[in-house]
């Protein structure tokens, strides 16, 4: 017994209007998250870090800068990491010093950082806490970068090491790490520390450890005085540290009187003006885009995999009048470490899933998930509609007219084969997109006048584009005509598949899930073989994952107030693709495989439906 269905046309209209409403509501909800009255003020949840008073007395900023200059001189002399000098300096400050060497061959040359065969050494010194049994540790790291960057960070790190060493109140070992080749060195060190090997790097085992690491800060400082400190939170695969770490940083910036930013943006108090709102929205959008990229945005990003709360602190020197000296930054770090040292448990009280429209405001998972939910519900509504249609399809229904097209039901229900073929073929294309660019780079370099990096990126784009020709080829494999019921079943599968994919993605990395949903949900909702082919195809291509990435590049540049021309934007797009592939190969970022192996095939299924015969 089926209840009488509403006329197909009116049902279609109702559904379309619901879908549009949901979509608009989702977008509006998301944009509303940046509006200050809708957000919560950050607060310290961890009692162990909250009420305890800490005095910051770090005095030796000037000496730290001198050490930094000495470090720079040795770095220039050696032409890289001055390992011996660092070892000696750390030892003289009373640390237990160890080194770790690592080598890494990239799958193809990294043109942004100009490296291919990477060989380096990490140096770290452990300050052993008195009367502590080596069970817990904190990490302070500074990268040893090329050129004149981050010398002050290393100087300050050594200065803090010396100062911390003379204090008795440490309850956790503190590891002072100077890592070479930024993230590659950090990856080697972390894998050495935890004795894992996820990406096939080659590193020497670590000699000294300090137990389970509770928190880590990475320091980047390239000038003697700074105007503000920027906090970087986004880590690998869009993981974020516990919000309490951001709160701690903010609390100390307030206490000591240092300007602090997030995404390079100061917070403003004029939330009720348009410019105030758009400032907050920009800050949040930047965070969303950075998180969606799934790459570590600072050296801290790799710690998060090991459940170590970590953030990068970056000194920024702009043209403001108000300057902060190194002693003050040292005091800020001292305060933060003293409080982290007071921790009795790992940071767990506050949120792990949040967005920040400013450093003092946050949006928790409970507030932002409805925005995604409103988009995802469209897919489910559509799927339900199709399900009902398929269930109600036996002959004898009152009207078979939909959109002026005669619906002809095939004599037999579509075989599994007719559904399975496009599914399998799209996924094969996805696998090709995932594997071929790196495998075929040598061949491409031999036959075309391009560099390895270009070869990889262009191969990826070529395979991606070649996928567009699939529907024609898929049908050759099929016996006979595709039925009307066939595409409905295929679309049902595609809708549910997409809903599950996006849902899971959004749970882990909300930003990525939301951006993909923004572009994929409209086409998934409205695509049928009966829509106008040329227009639909154009829209589909414009909303495909690749093009979404291109828009994101432009939007990101725009938000960072460094707009680029189309030409530069395209070059940036190409480098983003190569970086994505490298991130996956080097650090195990999951965005590239997710897009290539799952999202792109799913989009191809929809493409197949458009060209269903």
């Amino acid at each position: 017994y089926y209840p009488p269905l509403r006329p197909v046309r009116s049902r279609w209209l109702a559904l379309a209007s619901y879908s549009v409403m949901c979509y608009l509501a989702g977008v509006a909800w998301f944009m509303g998250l940046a509006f200050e009255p809708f957000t919560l003020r950050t607060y310290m949840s961890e009692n162990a870090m909250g009420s305890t008073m800490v005095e910051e007395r770090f005095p030796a900023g000037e000496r730290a800068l001198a050490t930094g200059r000495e470090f720079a001189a040795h770095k220039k002399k050696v032409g890289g990491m001055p390992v011996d000098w660092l070892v000696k300096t750390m030892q003289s400050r009373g640390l237990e010093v160890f080194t770790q060497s690592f080598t890494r061959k990239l799958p193809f040359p990294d043109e942004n950082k100009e490296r291919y065969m990477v060989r380096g050494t990490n140096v770290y010194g452990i300050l052993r806490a008195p009367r502590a049994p080596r069970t817990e540790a904190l990490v302070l790291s500074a990268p040893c970068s090329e050129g004149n960057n981050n010398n002050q960070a290393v100087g300050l790190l050594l200065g803090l090491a010396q100062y911390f060493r003379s204090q008795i109140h440490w309850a956790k070992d503190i590891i002072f790490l100077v890592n070479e080749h930024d993230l590659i060195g950090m990856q080697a060190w972390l894998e050495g520390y935890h004795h894992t090997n996820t990406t096939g790097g080659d590193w020497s085992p670590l000699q000294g450890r300090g137990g389970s690491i509770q928190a880590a800060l990475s320091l980047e400082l390239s000038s003697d005085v700074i105007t503000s400190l920027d906090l970087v939170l986004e880590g690998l695969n869009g993981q974020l540290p516990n919000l309490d770490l951001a709160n701690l940083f903010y609390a100390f910036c307030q206490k000591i009187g240092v300007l602090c930013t997030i995404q390079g943006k100061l917070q403003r108090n004029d939330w009720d003006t348009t410019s105030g709102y758009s400032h907050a929205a920009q800050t949040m959008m930047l965070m969303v885009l950075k998180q969606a990229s799934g790459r570590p945005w600072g050296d801290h990003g790799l710690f998060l995999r090991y459940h170590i709360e970590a953030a990068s602190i970056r000194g920024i020197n702009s043209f403001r009048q108000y300057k902060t000296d190194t002693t003050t930054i040292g005091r800020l770090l001292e305060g933060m470490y003293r409080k982290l040292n007071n921790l009795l448990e790992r940071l767990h009280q506050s949120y792990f899933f949040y967005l920040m429209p400013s450093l003092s405001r946050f949006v928790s998972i409970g507030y932002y998930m409805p925005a995604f939910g409103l988009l995802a519900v469209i897919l489910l509504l559509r799927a339900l509609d199709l399900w009902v249609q398929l269930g109600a399809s036996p002959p004898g229904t009152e009207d078979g007219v939909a959109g002026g097209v005669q619906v002809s039901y095939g004599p037999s229900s579509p075989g599994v084969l007719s559904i399975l073929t496009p599914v399998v073929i799209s996924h094969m294309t996805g696998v090709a997109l995932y594997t071929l660019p790196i495998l075929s780079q040598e061949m491409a370099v031999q036959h075309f006048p391009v560099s390895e990096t270009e070869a990889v990126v262009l191969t990826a784009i070529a395979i991606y584009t070649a996928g567009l020709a699939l529907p024609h080829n898929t049908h050759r494999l099929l016996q006979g005509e595709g039925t009307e019921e066939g595409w409905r079943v295929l679309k049902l599968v595609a809708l549910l598949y997409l809903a599950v994919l996006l849902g899971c993605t959004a749970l882990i990395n909300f930003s990525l899930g939301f951006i993909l949903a923004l572009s994929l949900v409209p086409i998934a909702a409205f695509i049928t073989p009966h829509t106008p082919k040329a227009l639909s195809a154009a829209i589909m291509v414009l909303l495909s994952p690749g093009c979404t990435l291109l828009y994101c590049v432009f939007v990101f540049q725009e938000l960072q107030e460094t707009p680029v021309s189309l030409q530069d934007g395209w070059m940036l797009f190409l480098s983003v693709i190569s970086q994505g592939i490298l991130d996956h190969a080097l650090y195990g970022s999951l965005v590239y495989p997710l897009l290539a192996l799952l999202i792109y095939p799913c989009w191809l299924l929809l493409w197949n439906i458009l060209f269903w015969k």
Partner: protein
Amino acid sequence: MAAHRCNIFMLVFVLCGLTYVFVRADIEDTNHVKDAESVAVDIARKANIGASLRSTKTEDQTQAAEKERQWEAETNPADAPSDNKADHVHDTMQNLDSRPAPYAKDQTQEAAEEERQWEATEVKEADHVPDTMQTPDVPPPTPAKDQFQEELVIRPLHSGDIYASFQFRTMWDTDFLRGSKVSHYRLFPKSLGQVISKFSVRELHISFTQGYWRTMQWGQPFLPSPPGAELWVWFQDTVTDVDGAWKELTNVLSGIFCASLNFIDSTNTVQPSASFKPLGLGNVTDQRFLRYAVLPREIVCTENLTPWKKLLPCGSKAGLAVLMKSEKLFHSSFHSQALHFRPVCQDWKCKSTVWELRQTLNVVFDLHTSGQGKREWSLFKMFSRTLTEACPLASSSKVYVDVTDNPQGELFELSPTTPLLSQAVVLGDRRTYSVYDLTNQATFGQTRSLNMLLRWRAAESGDMLRPLLHGERYVAGYGLQTGEIHTLMYNNHPYRAFPVLLLDTVPWYLRLYIHTLTVTSKGRDNKPSYIHYQPSKDRLRPHLLEMLVQLPPNSVTEVTMQFERALLKWTEYTPDPNHGFYVGSSVISALVPSVVAMDTNSTRECPLFSSFFPCKEESSYFMRVYTEPLLVNLPTPDFSMPYNVICLTCTVVAVGYGSLYNLLTRTFQVEEPSPGLAKRLANIIRRLRGVPLL
């Protein structure tokens, strides 16, 4: 009548007072005699250098020898008493000269080489020789039934830190097993004695440690101990219910030491089969009478120190114990206090046993946190006290300062200087000590107080000889499902392999996959020659793994084992579940080839004939190394808001909505009057027959 009684009381009181005075005088006399004896030892040294070497060994309570004995006891328990005999030869000081010194001649040359130093000693000693010359003629008094010795060893470490080790030894010839008959206590702490006799304890070793001994920076400690609290007890073989006695004993000790030893239960108690053999006399090796437990989380502070100090005969009123001020002792890098109770030989013939109670306290003071960064140490800087007297009850009271690396005073300067030197083989290494005898008033000098000062001459102290054995442990992997425990054992000996015993106790909530156990050295599989594994039982007992592994020379041996993290019941989580759960230290026990033996071909000048065969006694020594404890995070539910909300809502739903729903949906019926007896009977029969009821 009342007055009469009062007189009697007065009489008794006076008698008691007199007795006390006599006894006291007697003790002091004894002490005096013993002073004389120890000086006599020094005289004897001059007479016969070889013999003196042996006697100085006595003064040191040679660690190595003890360790050796322990190992012997482990390997061949039946021989233990006879081995002990050799050592207890040294413990008796009376017939020092009459005994032949078997290897005296070998040592003569070496001593001669250091003659300058010894001569210097003689010159300074000369002034107080005459007044003690006559003492050797006095016949040794009959030994008291109990005696007390105290000593402090100060060892400057290469890192610039300083290591201070106190040892207090009480020996008592009594029989604790007679139960309540032991009632008169003099030097031995009564609270402990009663416990020992009640629970029929044969050996008891307890240690409280705050911090981790950094073997690579500090070398070997005299008495190793794991972070937290460690307790191991051998019961007499007359005890029938060992588990019951153990349970009660831990609770009693918990009270005595103000520690959480009551948390020792079956889930953290094991019975090691090989690693912890009795250190004292006796050939009981049945591990049924052994219990071993570690509480890695135990935090040691003043409240544990105070009861420990109270067990000393002089308390902290006199003697070396005055140095133990808690604000200084706990302003250090490492703090460990221990108590060892065991039976030992009474004399060198070892015809009867006495009970030995040894209380030790080890502290390492940190150079950097002690302010100013000046490489300078004094008793006052370390303890904010100086020494003014020995404990009047002590038969010997000495302070040793390790001057091995400082023969000419080029490394540091020690003041006041002391004429006495002593040599001992400690942990396989031949060490030289400056000795300050506190029972000798001359030690305190004009100021009536002793405040040793060590002032470094060189900014850098030379390289330390790498410890031959050390261990490390860590948890590998990430995520909350599985993990891997890695234990690294380093053999730094350049050419000698030696076997070690590894003991691992892992709580049940880490489910060990024992099939993943691998032991590799130098990249190759290293098959253990002995494995004793006792699997855990959930909520009942921990995993116990003991292995005998041969460590190849100059190598790292890695033992790995995978585990799965169990999901606990929600009441089983600690109040701070996100801190993680502790896994106690592994214990590595080994018979390590001695550094002295390694030295035979080195540049140190010694006669050729003395160094061809490394002498047996010194060729290897027993050593125990503890690895760091582990902190492992288990999958933890979010105990905060959502969890509370769920609990609360469920309660509200169950209680409030449930009963309302029940009321609303229940159909009410008028109850029928109960059927008569005949009908009920008929129904029973019908039910048996399977026919519908009436």
